[in-house]
């Protein structure tokens, strides 16, 4: 552990304030990062973490306050300045060009654009050297599109190191990793710290924060509400400070399982590019039960969600609803069969940004009475429906005529919840239902899912967040490369044990056993 008071300050944010209209995103935020230190930056969605980082990286200009790197002030509003001063950022959503090689992605923008020749040989040598120094194994000539999520993250880190970053900022880096990959990442980070780098670690996974950081800074409503060494605090305390009060996650009682509502028998779907399809997969969703699907993203979750959501039929095997194979399989038959679909991406597939709330509310059911009859729309009925959803699901908005683009993520998700839950569905497909929501909205969504389960719905919860899966699910399956693990009952598996399955081990033995 470095001597913080004496160590050199490498990055200093001083009294940063930034407002967007009436909203104060950052309010006099100050932060000092020392050499060889790991700071955890905590805060809910909307607490101002992203804005702060965008100011540091010149995407926004602060209203007031200064940024200093290695004692030199950064000119505001210049995206290059932070990079050139030695600050590297690993975004939560990777910024990689998939059709290009690792080398091209890493070296992009590092050689002068006026240069007459791109020096690939020097770049390759340097990447290989960095890979071995920091234990970041990756093939420089591989196309990024063929890499796993973990490997892509290594490419992102390499990008920063290649630019001689002395300060690394990682935004939710473990969200997409297995517990084992997370351990590898931490090893790389410890190596980096040992070599004199400094790190800001943005996360909401408190046990990881405890494991890797020296100091913690908590933002709430744009203000620093807590700052102190990690040793002087615990997870409960941090969580409470983050939301401003004791966190009241919904209490989860075990569900009482009923009959199988949806069964997949040896179902396969074709691969889609680098994303695997399903491989002879068996799954039963029981009434009154939440089935959690854990796994590293890109291992067939999308294929399973598309199958159950009616976007794609099986290429082999059978899908049964309450024991009966449906006639034809499309989104419309799925909806009419009583499947509530909460899509992974509420902006891109769940809603139409420039439709108003009424038009979005009836998106799945516009062909049904009372919204339309023989091809004619009945807008009054649609509006009444939208109003009732807004009221019953507490969607904060000016009215049903508002374009949904203007709503926050949480309110958008509440509209989707209302849209699909109003028909008292028997099966609920919840794909990443709380991604990007603040804790209030997260708790709301979770309590709605639990309520639906308690009235007898079969829920499939797909999430990359293992904590969420473990908290809510009555049984857990792990998916890896399109294969499904056996069901694990609540509380029978530790995160590490699940991580082994998430990393793709155990499936072979299972195949032999059967």
């Amino acid at each position, binding site marked *: 552990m470095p001597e913080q008071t004496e160590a050199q300050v490498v990055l200093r944010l001083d009294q940063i304030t930034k407002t967007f209209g009436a909203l104060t995103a950052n309010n006099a935020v100050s932060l000092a990062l020392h050499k060889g230190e790991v700071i955890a930056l905590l805060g809910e969605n909307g607490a101002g973490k992203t804005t702060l980082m965008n100011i540091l990286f010149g995407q926004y200009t602060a209203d007031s306050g200064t940024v200093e790197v290695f004692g030199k002030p950064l000119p505001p509003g210049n995206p290059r300045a932070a990079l050139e001063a030695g600050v590297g950022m690993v975004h939560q959503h990777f910024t990689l*060009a998939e059709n290009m090689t690792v080398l*091209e992605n890493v*070296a*992009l*923008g590092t050689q002068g654009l006026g240069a007459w020749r*791109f020096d690939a040989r020097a770049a390759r040598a340097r990447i290989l050297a960095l890979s071995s120094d920091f234990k970041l194994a990756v093939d420089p000539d591989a196309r990024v599109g063929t890499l796993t999520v973990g490997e892509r993250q290594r490419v992102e880190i390499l990008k920063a190191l290649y630019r001689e970053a002395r300060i690394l900022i990682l935004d939710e880096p473990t969200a997409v990793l297995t517990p084992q990959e997370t351990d590898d990442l931490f090893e790389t980070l410890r190596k980096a710290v040992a070599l004199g780098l400094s790190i800001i670690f943005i996360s909401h996974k408190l046990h990881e924060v405890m494991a890797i950081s020296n100091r913690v800074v908590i933002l709430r409503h744009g203000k620093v509400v807590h700052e102190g060494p990690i040793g002087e605090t615990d997870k409960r305390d941090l969580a409470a400070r983050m939301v401003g009060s004791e966190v009241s996650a919904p209490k989860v009682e075990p569900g009482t399982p009923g009959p199988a509502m949806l069964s997949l028998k040896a179902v396969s779907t074709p691969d889609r590019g680098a994303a695997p399809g399903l491989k002879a997969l068996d799954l039963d969703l029981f009434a009154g039960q939440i089935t959690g699907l854990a796994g590293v993203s890109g291992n067939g979750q999308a294929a399973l969600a598309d199958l159950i959501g009616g976007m794609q039929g099986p290429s082999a095997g059978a899908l049964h609803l309450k024991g009966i194979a449906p006639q034809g399989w499309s989104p419309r038959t799925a909806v009419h069969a009583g499947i509530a679909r909460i899509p992974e991406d509420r902006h891109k597939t769940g809603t139409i940004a420039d439709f108003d709330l009424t038009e979005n509310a009836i998106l799945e059911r516009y062909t049904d009475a009372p919204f339309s009859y023989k091809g004619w729309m009945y807008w009054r009925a649609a509006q009444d429906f939208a109003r009732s959803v807004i009221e019953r699901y507490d969607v904060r908005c000016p009215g049903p005529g508002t374009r949904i683009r203007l709503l926050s993520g949480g309110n958008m998700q509440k509209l989707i919840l209302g849209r699909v839950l109003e028909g008292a569905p028997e099966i609920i497909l919840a794909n990443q239902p709380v991604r990007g929501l603040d804790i209030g909205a997260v708790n709301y969504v979770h309590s709605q899912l639990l309520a639906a389960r308690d009235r007898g719905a079969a829920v499939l919860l797909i999430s990359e967040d293992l904590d969420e899966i473990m908290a809510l699910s009555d049984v857990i399956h792990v998916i890896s490369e399109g294969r499904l693990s056996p069901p694990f009952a609540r509380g029978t598996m530790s995160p590490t044990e699940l991580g082994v399955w998430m990393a793709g081990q155990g499936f072979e033995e299972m195949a032999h056993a059967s």
Partner: protein
Amino acid sequence: MDIIDILLSASFWTAAIRIASPLIFAVLGELICERAGVLNLGIEGIMVAGAFAGWMAVYSGTDLWTGVAVAFAVGMLFGLVHSTLTVPFGLSQHVVGLGVTLLATSLTYFAYRLFLPEVTSPPKIEAFQPFEIPLLSDIPIIGPALFNQTPLTYLAFISVGVVAYILYRTPLGLALRAAGENPAAVAAQGLSVTAIRMGAVIAGSGLMAVGGAFLTMSAFDSFFFEMVNGRGWICIALVVFGAWRPGKALLGAILFAAFDALQIRVQQTPMGADIPYQIFLMMPYILSILALIVMSRRAEVPAALMVPFNKGER
């Protein structure tokens, strides 16, 4: 067989290369735009404007190469209009492109009437003449086809090499390709997506205009309305056919031009005389559509083509 005779004649291949030349410039121009992520439907109008501007400059007394430069500059100007609307403002590339085509075409016709109010048939200029490259032009068939052309044709071929080199061998080309694949990756490395995309559209539009200028300054020696006649749209099909690669696009342009040269010659054979000439004139357009259909299954479209980038969003 008539067709075999035609295919073996040097004059046929000479004509094919001549027909290909304007397409090569314009295809390269479009390819640069699309590789950076911007579809430029202004191509048809920009070619019209380039054809007029280069020719008009020479008619007004400049030398031929200055005329080419003028055409390039005029193309860049329209590229600036296009890219300003499509890149920082992120407006529909379809609508803006068509708007630029309409604007460039109508401005050109207006300027033509303005400068030459009284003429019934357009005046001629002293156009580029074929320049025979010693020795190389003596090779049978391909010698005259490749090495007895006007300097602008040579420039077209050189441009293919230069564009390919820039795209694949320089840091600038890497950044340009990345802007067409994932602009966020470019922005994250501290480069300006706006500058790269606008630069690509402006430079690409300049090349399109030179393609137009080839028509009035090398293929012919005068400017006519309807002269470009859909060549710009054909070039958009050729970019797809060439899978967004300069070398393949060059091959596509030559193949296409060879078909065009062939139909002109078949028209003059006894067999061709019985077929309405419109059928022959349709061939380039039909071929373009067929090329699109054939390539539709395996086109390697730049991933961010037509996707505007707004750095505030994520």
